[in-house]
């Protein structure tokens, strides 16, 4: 004997019987609002469990949570080593970008070829080798008071690379600046960001021209960091200490400016330790000795 099922189109109430009820017992909708549910194939015979009961609901929820939790833990733990390797690789790629080596095919080989050592700056500005693991978050390193400097060589010339971290408009921004052997002239720079606006703030990463506009600029003047990112179009072209910001992204540009100021200021002992060809530098050395 097959009982038919009728579903109320208004509230979803299902009535079982040979005919639709005159009135829906839940919402009071008339008979015309009911439609017959036609089960596909021979399925209806197997409806054993009441999926509406409390016990079923609780067990269902518990099982679902446990299954999903195990699945996520499994996926996350099996993929972790691979992901970490990718992050390390990406960090190295960014460091290479600061040396104006972009779109490198084999990042690891190129990095090993160019970057000679990962050093830590001491309070007096001297460098000692760093023997820990390769870092991917320099924010926490600065927090621990560890100031990294990478020694690199490009075409036989020594370069120093300093990691930077800061705050953009929406989230974190970071970058790497490569300096010439005089520890003042910028050889190349790379910026990236977590969540700046595409087309505006995100241009600090996408717009290679913006990054290239830092080349040849200088950082230290009279013992302090003097490199400024100013409002787009306002930079004095003859000054070695001014760079145009990104058009329409003043907040992000200010973030870049603040990042350069803040991070490189803590590197002053290192930047000022060697003073070739720079008059400002000798004055600054005196200031340092008075301190």
């Amino acid at each position: 004997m097959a009982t038919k099922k009728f579903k109320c189109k208004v509230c979803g109430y299902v009535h079982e019987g040979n005919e639709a009820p005159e009135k829906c017992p839940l919402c009071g909708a008339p008979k015309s609002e009911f439609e017959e549910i036609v089960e596909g194939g021979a399925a209806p015979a197997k409806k054993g469990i009441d999926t509406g009961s409390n016990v079923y609901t609780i067990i269902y929820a518990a099982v679902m949570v446990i299954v999903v939790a195990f699945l996520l833990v499994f996926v996350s733990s099996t993929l972790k080593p691979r992901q970490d390797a990718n992050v390390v690789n990406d960090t190295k790629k960014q460091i290479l970008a600061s040396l104006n080596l972009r779109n490198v095919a084999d990042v690891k080989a190129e990095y090993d070829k160019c970057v000679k050592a990962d050093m830590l700056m001491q309070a007096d500005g001297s460098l000692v080798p760093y023997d820990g693991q390769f870092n991917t978050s320099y924010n926490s390193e600065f927090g621990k008071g560890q100031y990294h400097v990478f020694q690199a060589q490009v075409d036989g010339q020594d370069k120093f690379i300093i990691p930077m971290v800061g705050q953009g408009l929406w989230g974190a921004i970071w970058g790497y600046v490569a300096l010439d052997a005089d520890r003042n002239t910028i050889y190349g720079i790379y910026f990236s960001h977590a969540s700046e606006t595409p087309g505006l703030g995100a241009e600090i990463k996408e717009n290679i021209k913006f990054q290239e506009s830092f080349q040849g600029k200088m950082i230290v003047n009279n013992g302090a960091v003097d490199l400024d990112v100013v409002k787009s179009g306002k930079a004095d072209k003859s000054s070695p200490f001014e760079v145009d910001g990104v058009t329409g992204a003043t907040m992000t540009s200010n973030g870049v400016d603040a990042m350069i100021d803040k991070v490189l200021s803590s590197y002053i002992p290192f930047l000022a330790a060697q003073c070739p060809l720079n008059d400002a530098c000798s004055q600054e050395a005196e200031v340092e000795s008075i301190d």
Partner: protein
Amino acid sequence: MANKNNEALKQPVWLNNPVVVQILGICSALAVTSQLKPAIVMGLSVTVIVAMSNVIISLLRNTIPNRIRIIVQLVVVAALVTIVSEILKAFAYDVSVQLSVYIGLIITNCILMGRLEAFAMQNGPWESFLDGIGNGLGYAFILIVVAFVRELFGSGKLFGFQVVPQWCYDHGYLNNGFMIMAPMALILVGCVIWIHRSINKDLQEK
């Protein structure tokens, strides 16, 4: 049956478009359409995730307790998005960097919940899969239209390449900065709905 499947796939692309007819997924449509590339990436990711979660929910539909069905749907979608994001991080790192914040936005996309609740809970896996693909593509289509206009007039570029020639700028042409802002996306979506309704007269409300 084949005809119904065809409908499930084709309807959402134009006549029952998730964005302009169902008015779902507007929030993410505003967020990712200032340039074409993120818009396309987002459109494709949503397509994949809607199709997959539609299939899973459709397979489970007879076992899901009615009272906690929304939570079950949410858990399935969130788990799926997390797993896809983990896999991308491990095997396609560059793509995952590009998707960055958008991958999280997928979970909050109303199209997912809308289709799960309205379609996958009542239909079989294959139809649900097609419905997911159709809705994803419909969503992607609108994103691409809006992103095209916004990137062209907002930054004079398409896919990051300069298309408005330099001499236009020399003669005083300026990029419309307002195009990049989110309010303009809303206005553009409004315009798309307007055009869509004037083509499909039967959708107009009296």
